[in-house]
C-alpha cells in the first residue's frame, strides 16, 4: 500500500498542496513524492515528538500537514504530542503509519502496531482509516484530505484475491454473500479471509463485510443489521488488540441498537503468547487469526445452534 499511498499523495498534492513530514522513513517508496513536492517534503529526522509538534504548528499556520513513519513510531512515541498538540486543537494533521498489526513480522515486537487505532481513538477529534486493499488508499486519502480534522491512516500489505471485484470505496462494504453468519473484517486480513471463503459454498461461509473507518460515526448499516437479524452469528476480525478495538465498538453499537446476537467471537491480536517471534503469518496463527479457524468458528456455532 506504500506505493499506492505515494501515488495518491502526488495526485492530491497537484490538486491541493500540503506539507509532508517523514521521520526518516520512506526509502525506495517516497522518492517520487519528495521529488514532486520539493521544499514542502521535509525529512524531520529520527525525532517523532518534534515532528508531530512541528506538524501541529504548520497546521496552525494554515497548511494541511501529512506525517509519515512506520505505524508504531507514529502513534506511540509521540502520543502526547498527538494528544496535546494535534487532537486537543483539532488541527488538520494526517498521520500515516505503515505496517499496522504484525505487518513488520520478524522485525520484532517494537515494530508491530497492535494497539494503534484503539489508542488514537481515545483522543478527541481524530478518525482512523484502515484500508483493506491497495485500491482503497486513493479514495481514503481524498476523504482524509477533505476533512479538516486529525486523521490516522493505517497501512498494511494488500492481500486482495485476484478474482475479487471491489465495489466503490465506502466505510462499510459487503464484499461477499454467505449463509453462515456474518464476519466484519478490518484491514488487509480481509483479503486472505475472503480468498479462503470463496473456496467454500455460500452455505458454508459467512457474509463478509469490510469496515475501514473508525469510530462508527454513522452506526452500523441497515443491511448489516438485517443480515444479523436473520442470522445472529457474528465474528469480528482485526489485527489489533482487543482493548479499543473495532470489535468492541461494533459490539457496543449493536447493543445500543437493541440487537441480540446468538454468538459473538472476536478474532484479534493476542500479542506474543508463546514468546516467540516470526513472520506476520506466524503471529496471526499464534493469535488464532487464520482464515480457516475464523470460518470454522461460524460453522461450529451453527452446529451448536
Amino acid at each position, binding site marked *: 500500500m506504500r506505493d499506492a499511498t505515494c501515488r495518491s499523495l502526488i495526485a492530491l498534492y497537484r490538486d491541493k498542496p500540503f*506539507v509532508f513530514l517523514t521521520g526518516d522513513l520512506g526509502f525506495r517508496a517516497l522518492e517520487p513524492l519528495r521529488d514532486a513536492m520539493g*521544499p*514542502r517534503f*521535509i525529512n*524531520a*529526522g529520527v*525525532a517523532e*515528538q*518534534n515532528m*508531530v*509538534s*512541528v*506538524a*501541529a*504548528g*504548520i*497546521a*496552525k*499556520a*494554515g*497548511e494541511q500537514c501529512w506525517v509519515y513513519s512506520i505505524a508504531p513510531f507514529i502513534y506511540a512515541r509521540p502520543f*502526547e*504530542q498527538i494528544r*496535546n*498538540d494535534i487532537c*486537543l*486543537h*483539532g488541527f488538520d494533521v494526517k498521520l500515516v503509519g505503515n505496517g499496522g498489526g504484525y505487518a513488520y513480522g520478524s522485525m520484532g515486537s517494537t515494530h508491530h502496531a497492535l494497539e494503534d487505532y484503539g489508542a488514537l481513538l481515545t483522543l478527541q477529534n481524530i478518525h482512523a482509516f484502515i484500508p483493506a486493499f491497495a485500491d482503497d488508499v486513493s479514495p481514503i486519502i481524498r476523504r482524509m484530505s477533505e476533512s479538516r480534522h486529525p486523521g490516522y491512516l493505517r497501512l498494511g500489505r494488500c492481500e486482495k484475491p485476484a478474482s475479487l471485484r471491489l465495489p466503490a470505496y465506502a466505510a462499510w462494504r459487503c464484499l461477499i454473500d454467505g449463509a453462515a453468519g456474518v464476519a466484519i473484517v478490518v484491514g488487509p486480513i480481509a483479503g486472505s479471509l475472503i480468498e479462503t471463503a470463496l473456496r467454500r459454498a455460500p452455505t458454508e461461509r459467512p457474509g463478509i463485510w469490510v469496515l475501514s473507518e473508525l469510530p462508527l460515526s454513522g452506526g452500523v448499516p441497515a443491511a448489516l443489521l438485517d443480515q444479523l437479524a436473520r442470522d445472529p452469528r457474528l465474528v469480528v476480525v482485526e489485527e489489533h488488540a482487543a482493548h479499543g478495538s473495532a470489535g468492541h465498538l461494533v459490539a457496543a453499537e449493536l447493543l445500543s441498537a437493541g440487537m441480540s446476537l446468538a454468538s459473538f467471537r472476536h478474532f484479534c491480536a493476542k500479542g506474543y503468547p508463546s514468546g516467540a517471534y516470526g513472520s506476520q503469518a506466524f503471529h496471526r496463527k499464534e493469535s488464532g487469526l487464520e482464515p480457516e479457524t475464523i470460518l470454522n468458528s461460524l460453522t461450529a456455532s451453527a452446529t451448536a445452534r
Partner: protein
Amino acid sequence: MTKFPGGYRGRVTPVPIPNTEVKPATADGTACAGVWESRSLPGLIHSPLVIDERAFFFSAAPHWLRATVACTLPTRMTARSFAEQLKRAKRRLVRMHYESGIGHLGGNLSALDAVLLLHLEIMTADDAFVLSKGHAAGALYIALWATGKLGDVDLDQFHRDGSRLSGHPAGGWHPDIPFGTGSLGHGLGLASGLALGKQLRGERGTVYCLLSDGECEEGSTWETVLFCAHHRLSNVAVLIDANGLQGFGTTTEIASLEPIADKLRGFGVQVDEIPGHDPVALRAALTAEGRGPRFLVLRTRKGHGISFMEDRVDSHYLPLDAAQYELALREIDAT
C-alpha cells in the same frame, strides 16, 4: 507624512522599534485582538494611557469600545513607563493568583518582565507568542490584560469553573494564544512548526517562544533545537527563563544544564545571555538583528520582586495567604 502616532507609514515606526522587517506599512487591515475589522489611525494620544487595575472600564465597557481603546495603547514606551507598567502588571498578577488561591507564582514572576515587554513593545500583528512553560499562564494573561486583549472580568475567572483562563493555557479561544500548553517540551516544536509554516506561505512575522530552564530536560526540546537550527528558522526567537529552580530542587542539583548557552551554541544557533529583569537589556536583545534561530538565556529569579518568594522552590507551588498577599503588594509598591 503625518506625525501623529499612527500615521507613520512605509515601515517607519514612530519610535525605534527595530523589528521593521516585519512591521506592516500601516496598521490598517491587520488584526487587533478582539476585533478583526480594518481600523483607522489611533492618533492624538500624547501620553501613555493608564488604566487603573481597580477601574471597571475594561470589564464594563462594550466589547467594541474595549477593543478600540486597546488599539490605542502606545506601542513603545520609555524604560520608566515600562517600569510602571511592570509594577501594575505584577500587582494584578499577584492579585489574580491570590484571589484564585493558586500558587505557581514563582515562575510567573521570573517570566513576567520578558512576556510583558514582548507584548507591550516588541511584537507586531504578524508575530506570535508561544508559551511553552504553560505554568506561567498568569504572566501571559496579565500581558494580554496589559495590552487590552483581556479584561478584568476575564482575569477574575482565572482557575474558576466555566473559565477559559485555566491554570495552563488552552488553545483555540484567543487569537493571541495560538496553542494550548502545559506539558513541558511541546512549545518549541509548535513554535518551530508555526514559523516554518509561515515561511512556506511567504508570511512575515517572528514566532517567540518562552521555555523554562527545567523544560530543557525534556528530550523533545532538544529534538526541536536540532530541527530549527538545521532548517535555519530565522523567524524563531526562543527565550529561556533560566531561574535555576524547578519543581523539586535546583536545576543544578537535578540535571546540570550549565553551561546551557554553550550547549545551545553547539547546535549552531545564536545565543545571548542577558539579565532577565533588566528591561534595557531585554529590549536590546529582543530587537537585535540576528541570523537563524535566536536563543536568549534570561538570567532571572524565581519569585522576582517579592522577598519571601525569591529563589525559593516553594514559590513554584504554594499560594499566598492573606498576610503574604499584603506584604507582597507592599513590596511591589516599594519598588
